[in-house]
């Protein structure tokens, strides 16, 4: 379906876009017809800086299964990394 439903995540960090690295503050997340991926529906994420007018974006269009895989791996990476970094230096 063509929907206008967009979830907006407040994020803090940087992304490398068409003009190089940029500060980002928002991830627009939606599951709908992609522009490029040859899928009926894709989980799309557009990383933008809304404070700067969101004139550029870093975009991905993922299959639903791979989006879930990404979510799981993000959680795993965070858990492992935070655990490792929490240890006192040897």
């Amino acid at each position, binding site marked *: *379906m063509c929907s*206008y439903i967009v979830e907006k995540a407040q994020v803090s960090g940087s992304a490398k876009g068409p003009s190089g690295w940029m500060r980002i503050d928002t991830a627009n997340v939606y599951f709908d017809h992609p522009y490029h991926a040859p899928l009926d529906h894709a989980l799309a994420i557009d990383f933008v800086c809304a404070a700067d007018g969101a004139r550029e974006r870093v975009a991905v269009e993922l299959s639903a299964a791979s989006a879930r895989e990404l979510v799981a791996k993000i959680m795993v990476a965070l858990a492992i990394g935070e655990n490792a970094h929490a240890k006192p230096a040897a």
Partner: protein
Amino acid sequence: MSYEGLAAETVAFRGHNGDQGEAYYAQPTRAGKFPGVVVIHHLPGWDEWITEVVRKFAHHGYAAISPHLYFRDGPGSPDDVGARVRAAGGVPDEQVVGDAKGATAFLRAQANSNGKVGAIGFCSGGRHAYLAACRLPEIDAVVDCWGGNVIVDDQALLNAKRPVAPIDLTDQLRVPLLGLFGNDDENPNADQVNRTEAVLKRLGKNYEFHRYDKAGHAFFNTARAAYRPEQAADGWSKVFAFYRKHLAA
């Protein structure tokens, strides 16, 4: 036999409020008078597939134009601009109707126009085409390809940009309507298509609906897994038969 020669290019047109925007335009190159078709793109934006549709119409003897409905939100590539528009909640219906009106004027202003102009839209563009045909006397025949939200079951989907469900404007529809739908589609689903047809029938409108098994949303779109070659071939034949009948001078 020889195939129709065609010329395709990006042109400037005047849309809603007289705003100047870009549109993709293709026409047969042989001498003659041709009907026009306004091609309305889907929500993700003004993409390569929609330019293929425009050229397909020219190949079949029509002058066709696809206005970039998001031109006001540029500059940028159509995909980036489309993402920007989506994040802002889409474009207002009133603006789309104005842009469709401007596109019909562009077609009629061409020396090779036969004076007739149809509209066709896909997905959200199908809804826009339905809406435009209800609102604009400039459109002579309309094709709705699986337009979602013609019927709005969730009133929360109506807002300042989309204040009225197109189905509620059906009494203003004065031209023939062709509707093509996949029975596996979720929006519009089979029940919504049936209810749309019931309204058209009750109001005595000139319409024909075709429903396709083993097809879902966007089954014409060769760039997607949803493409269904047999159903799409039959659907295109219905489109061209419809326009041959209703757009002849």
